């Protein structure tokens, strides 16, 4: 009797519901295969290869090659689920290419292995010679499907190369292909900057034996000198609405930051002191600018509200902090020297957490991808300069392919779609 009562009591006591909470993930890459659907044309295979490489380069996908597969279905209905479950594959992407005289039609579907069913179907339409660009659009669609943010395969990179005293300002696809020369000069070119619509660029050219800022329209090649001055003008940064250019100039005696309204050429001054103020970068809402200043003795990052002109200091750790840009509303990325080495660091303005992202030694020119998830930067291995990158969410580090060679000053385009 007591026992029964006891059991009833305990049962009441034990009528509890279990909640398991998952808070972390092991950051495993998504395991997928990219296959041609139905046809096996040469063009189709090239598209599959470009997409596979795009996804691999993100560091967040593991793309199986055909020799790793147990069976190769030509379409969704031919998928033998067991062969894919054995390999632990998450999804299969089927690419179907249709080419006509005036269009390249790429249809793709994402097939989930566990559910044994199609999860998503999309379509990219382009011109017949836009194989690479169309493939990049597909890669970005796949990336966005899994990770919720835009992919960056269809973006472009701008950078400067130097070859036996000839400087070239180049632009290429994010994967290094389609390199085009924007400017060829006998003198240095530095600080290239994209406008928010990717139609115009600004850069510093030493063609007249001093630092001068030019804007250039990508399509027409038309150039314009932003400010004629016998002093140096450098460090251009477009405002998000493309109405202003922030820049640095020594026209008032030492390096200060100014704004020029492009339409009216009206100049306003943002900093006023005897220290070096340079490297302005805009916030996405166009209200603030972060910049480098050594007013406290060594280069540190400051922020100015454009309207109120109120400035505040952002960095407190390290004896050299420069070339900052906003990663998002609360975080900035910049070159940081703790004691000896120059690395790329990230600072959370709210929590004040400083995260040093690189471990090489002479890192500079950090450049953030438009989706805010990848940073590339220039670094050196002995005497060899190269571009490296780090994926912020997966923490995966990578090195850009050798076709970039000796290059400096990378600048990532905004989204082009």
């Amino acid at each position, binding site marked *: 009797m*007591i*026992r029964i*009562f*006891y059991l009833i*009591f*305990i049962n009441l*006591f*034990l*009528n*509890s*519901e*279990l*909640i*398991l*909470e*998952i*808070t*972390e*993930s*092991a*950051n*495993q*890459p*998504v395991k997928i295969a990219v296959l041609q659907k139905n046809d096996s044309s040469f063009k189709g295979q090239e598209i599959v290869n470009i997409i596979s490489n795009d996804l691999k380069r993100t560091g967040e996908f593991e793309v199986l090659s055909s020799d790793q597969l147990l069976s190769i279905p030509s379409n969704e209905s031919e998928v033998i689920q067991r062969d894919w479950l054995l390999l632990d594959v*998450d999804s299969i992407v089927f690419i179907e290419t249709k080419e006509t005289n005036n269009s390249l039609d790429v249809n793709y579907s994402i097939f*989930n292995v*566990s*559910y044994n069913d199609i*999860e998503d179907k999309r379509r990219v339409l382009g011109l017949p010679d836009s194989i690479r660009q169309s493939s990049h659009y597909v890669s970005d669609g796949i990336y966005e*499907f*899994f*990770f*919720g*943010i835009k992919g960056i395969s269809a973006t472009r990179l701008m950078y400067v190369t130097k070859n036996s005293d000839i400087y070239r300002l180049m632009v290429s696809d994010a994967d290094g292909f389609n390199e085009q020369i924007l400017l060829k000069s006998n003198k240095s070119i530095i600080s290239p900057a994209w406008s928010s619509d990717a139609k115009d660029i600004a850069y510093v050219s030493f063609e007249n034996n001093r630092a001068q800022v030019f804007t250039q329209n990508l399509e027409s090649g038309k150039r314009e000198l932003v400010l004629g001055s016998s002093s140096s003008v450098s460090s251009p940064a477009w405002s998000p609405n493309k109405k202003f250019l922030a820049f640095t100039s020594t026209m008032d005696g030492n390096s200060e930051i100014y704004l020029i309204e492009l339409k009216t050429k009206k100049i306003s001054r943002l900093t006023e002191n005897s220290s070096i103020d340079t490297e302005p970068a805009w916030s996405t809402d166009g209200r603030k600018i972060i910049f480098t200043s050594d007013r406290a003795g060594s280069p540190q990052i400051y922020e100015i509200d454009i309207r109120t002109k109120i400035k505040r200091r952002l960095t407190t750790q390290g004896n050299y902090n420069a070339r900052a840009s906003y990663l998002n509303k609360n975080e900035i990325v910049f070159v940081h020297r703790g004691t000896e080495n120059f690395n790329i660091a990230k600072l959370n303005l709210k929590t004040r957490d400083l995260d040093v992202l690189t471990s090489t030694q002479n890192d500079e020119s950090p450049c953030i991808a438009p989706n805010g*998830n990848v940073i590339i930067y220039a670094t050196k291995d002995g005497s060899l300069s190269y571009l490296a990158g780090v994926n912020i*969410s997966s923490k995966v580090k990578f090195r850009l392919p050798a076709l970039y060679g000796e290059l400096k000053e990378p600048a990532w385009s905004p989204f082009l779609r």
Partner: protein
Amino acid sequence: MIKWFSAFILSILVHALIFLIYSFLDSVQEETTDRKITNVSFIQPEKKDTDTKKTIDKKDTDTKKTTTKEEPIKEPEKKIIKDLDKYLVEEQEQEVFYKKLDKVEQISAQVIKDIESIWIRPNNIKKGMYAEFNLTIDRLGNIDNFDIKRSSGSDTFDRAAMNAIKKYKKIKYIKNVDEETYRIYFANFTLRFKPE
């Protein structure tokens, strides 16, 4: 008759005492583990606050044992013998009870670890975002069914969580657990994906 009745009252009092001490100690102590994320949460229907996470602490077992030991000593001699029997039986049942809870915690921790290694977290996570799912498990541990109890607000996030559950397919540790534990804890439980 009176003896039986008073023994019965005493037994109730003892149980009530155990219950109160347990709930008190539970709300005070929280086990800190090496891993940041062992989260096994028990919802007590009596409690108003259903979302407090508690973990079973071995220390509780010891203190309870000592507490229960003290009680019988105060009793008059004749009762001690009878109570001792009951006390031994109760102690054994309690031991079984806590062993079961231990096992539940072990399995829960393992399941969390397993799912973490498969879950591919999207990159568009906002602060405080989470999704909850009801899982139905059969006696062998197969995930029969799951449905979404609370959406995170993001399709991508919900989908990534469901993919992890679907990929997991089976909790193999369930088959080593007895019927009662399975029925009470694992036949139906909630899985919450809440990134830190």
